[in-house]
């Protein structure tokens, strides 16, 4: 594995998890989980509710003590006192609600190592950018939920973190502010930050993430680049536009079927040519066709839909 040690001259992973196990009493939440996040990459940590994503992040950041295993940030156990530049946007949002926006941002800026002037200047510039300049002296609890989220995101990305961990970052944002948030995250990426996204928004994962990890019941269900995971789960697909009636066949399964459009799932070993010939032989008039991979949304449904159905 590329992150196995210094001998292969690979850089130290931004995040490394080895043999992580977490149990609360008799309940095992995570079992033997290993993965690594490379410096500068955008990594997606995916899973249904209760699959162990947030627990993994909390253990990584020292909030929970793992039952077993090693969780390292830049090669060592995370300790905020050691000055690691890490920004974390937790799933549970919240700041000091009775204080003013600027006071809270300046406070966190100071805790992140900025001087009072730097923290104040950075905060004012950020508030200007996200349209909250007029609310600098407003108490946080007087802001709307979305506005509070913007402030919290600002606190998270203050002092240009090397590692940015975002747990459900778009939760509670409308489409406009979601775009703004993703632009801000993009900026951090372009400045070289490692980004870990814990999310259910598969379109964002497909668009932004270099690699992903799918967690199911505390175990890694899939781990690799988006394409690798798609290949591992979905195999190949064909999208066909047609007129006529699709025949029943052992060479494909209709995953999506509409009047003149269908997505056909091809088993291993079946070539698209064979399917095209079979359709033509059956009298189907093809207007167009292309090959495609299964979307992450579909993979998610496939993996966790079974779980939900069982539940």
């Amino acid at each position, binding site marked *: 594995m590329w992150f196995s040690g210094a001998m292969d001259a690979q850089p130290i992973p931004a995040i490394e998890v080895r043999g992580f196990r977490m*149990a*609360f*009493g008799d309940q095992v939440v995570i079992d033997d989980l290993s993965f690594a996040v490379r410096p500068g990459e955008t990594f997606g940590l995916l899973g249904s509710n209760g699959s162990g994503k947030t627990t993994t992040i*909390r253990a990584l*950041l*020292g*909030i*929970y*003590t*793992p*039952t*077993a295993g090693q969780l390292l940030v830049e090669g060592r156990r*995370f*300790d*905020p*006192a050691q000055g690691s530049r*890490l920004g*974390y946007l*937790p799933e*549970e*949002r*919240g*700041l*000091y*609600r*009775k*204080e003013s926006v600027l*006071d809270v941002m300046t*406070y*966190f800026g*100071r*805790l*992140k*190592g900025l001087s009072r002037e730097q923290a104040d200047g950075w905060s004012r510039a950020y508030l200007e950018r996200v349209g909250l300049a007029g609310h600098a002296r407003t108490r946080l609890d007087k802001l709307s939920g979305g506005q509070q989220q913007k402030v*919290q995101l600002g*606190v*998270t990305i203050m002092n240009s973190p090397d590692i940015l961990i975002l747990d459900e970052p778009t939760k509670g944002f409308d489409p406009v502010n979601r775009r703004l948030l993703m632009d801000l995250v993009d900026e951090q990426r372009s400045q070289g930050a490692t980004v870990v996204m814990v999310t259910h928004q598969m379109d964002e994962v497909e668009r932004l993430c270099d690699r992903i990890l799918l967690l199911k019941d505390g175990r890694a269900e899939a781990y690799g680049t988006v394409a690798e995971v798609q290949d591992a789960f979905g195999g190949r697909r064909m999208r066909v536009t047609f007129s006529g009636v699709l025949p029943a066949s052992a060479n494909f399964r209709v995953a999506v079927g509409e009047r003149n459009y269908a997505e056909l799932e091809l088993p291993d070993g079946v070539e698209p040519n064979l399917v095209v010939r079979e359709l033509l032989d059956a009298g189907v008039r093809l207007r167009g066709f292309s090959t495609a991979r299964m979307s992450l949304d579909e993979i998610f449904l496939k993996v966790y839909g079974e779980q939900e159905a069982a539940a």
Partner: protein
Amino acid sequence: MNRHNLGTVIGFEFRRTVFKPRFWLISLSVPVLIAVVVGLIALSGQTTAERAENQGSEPVTFTYTDASGLVDPAIAKAAGGTEVTDAAAARQAVVDGTSQCHIDFPKDPLSQSVEVRGTDLGLFDSGRYSAVAQAVLSASVEKRIGDPVVAKLAVNGADISLVTYADGRPTPGLAGVIAPGLFLVLFYLAVLMLGNQMLNVTLEEKENRVTEMILTTMNPTTLIVGKVIALALIGIVQGVAVGLPAGIVFGLFSGSLGLPSASDEAGAAAVLGLIPIDPATMLVGFALFLLSFLMFTGLLVAIGAVMPSAKEAGNAFGVVVMSMFVPLYAASLLVSDPHGVVSQVFTFFPLTAPVSALLRNATGGLSWWEAGIALVVLGAFGWAFLVLGVRLFRTGSISYGSRVRIGRALGIGRR
């Protein structure tokens, strides 16, 4: 502990409390309340004096019967009295409103009460009738004795000055309790004024769901220590805010309260001269106060980390404070039998140790070895509670909206 972050936390916590109008509104309401009470007392004193003066100028007219034979008719007449023989008729005359007052001096005033009937003059002024009855009888008895000095001694007694000794040195007596007793008062005020804020040291992060942001930005020990230091500073500011106006009010009105005036040098010296100060007792009192404060803080921090909301924590806070002040109910026992089993149990049990040890120290009933044990108990439990609080805060305060199970929270940490 990161000094920069510690300073940042102290500054933030201090500013966001002290720079708010609500803080000053609450803090200054105490001296304002004291000023109002003192003003009322002074006003009441003045009114009472004026009333007494008026009473003297408005003599009571009364009838009386004297079965004892002790009442001097001349004295009674001078006081506005007329002797009658039919007591029942005289009493009825008062009921009918034709007579202001009737007094029956019984045969044996030592074992029987003097019966007084009078027309109502209000809650305070009606006391004039009893005063007249007493004055007539006392003056008559004095006249019978003949020697005015003997008569005064018989009626008023003599001033007695008591000095007691221990180990060959005079003991301070009740006045000796005042200076070391201030630490008990200080502790009580600290609990009263800072208790809720201490409880919120960890609760606030939990209620605002800011714990994870904080824990990934700084060490929780730094946060909690910073908050406690800020609270202590806020307590000092609050103490000055309360004490300074109270001192000014005392200086201005001490004369009206019947106390030596503190506004002039001689008066201040008189006030301070009444309070003996023993350095050793004061030192022990100070140490007990500090460690009691530490233990109380640690306990509230731990409670705050476990409870899901301020409301639930408030209930637990009430129980803790009640148990801490339980020794006050046994105060007489702690003072009269300071080395008894109950006193020692109270002194060495962590929750009751602060009040018991401070009270016993103030009343001179705490030996050096008992003080040592109490200090060790308070210090050890204060430190343990703080460590526990930090640990529970780290693992437990992200259990938003639910009470933390201590065993589970600590169990996670052990694995």
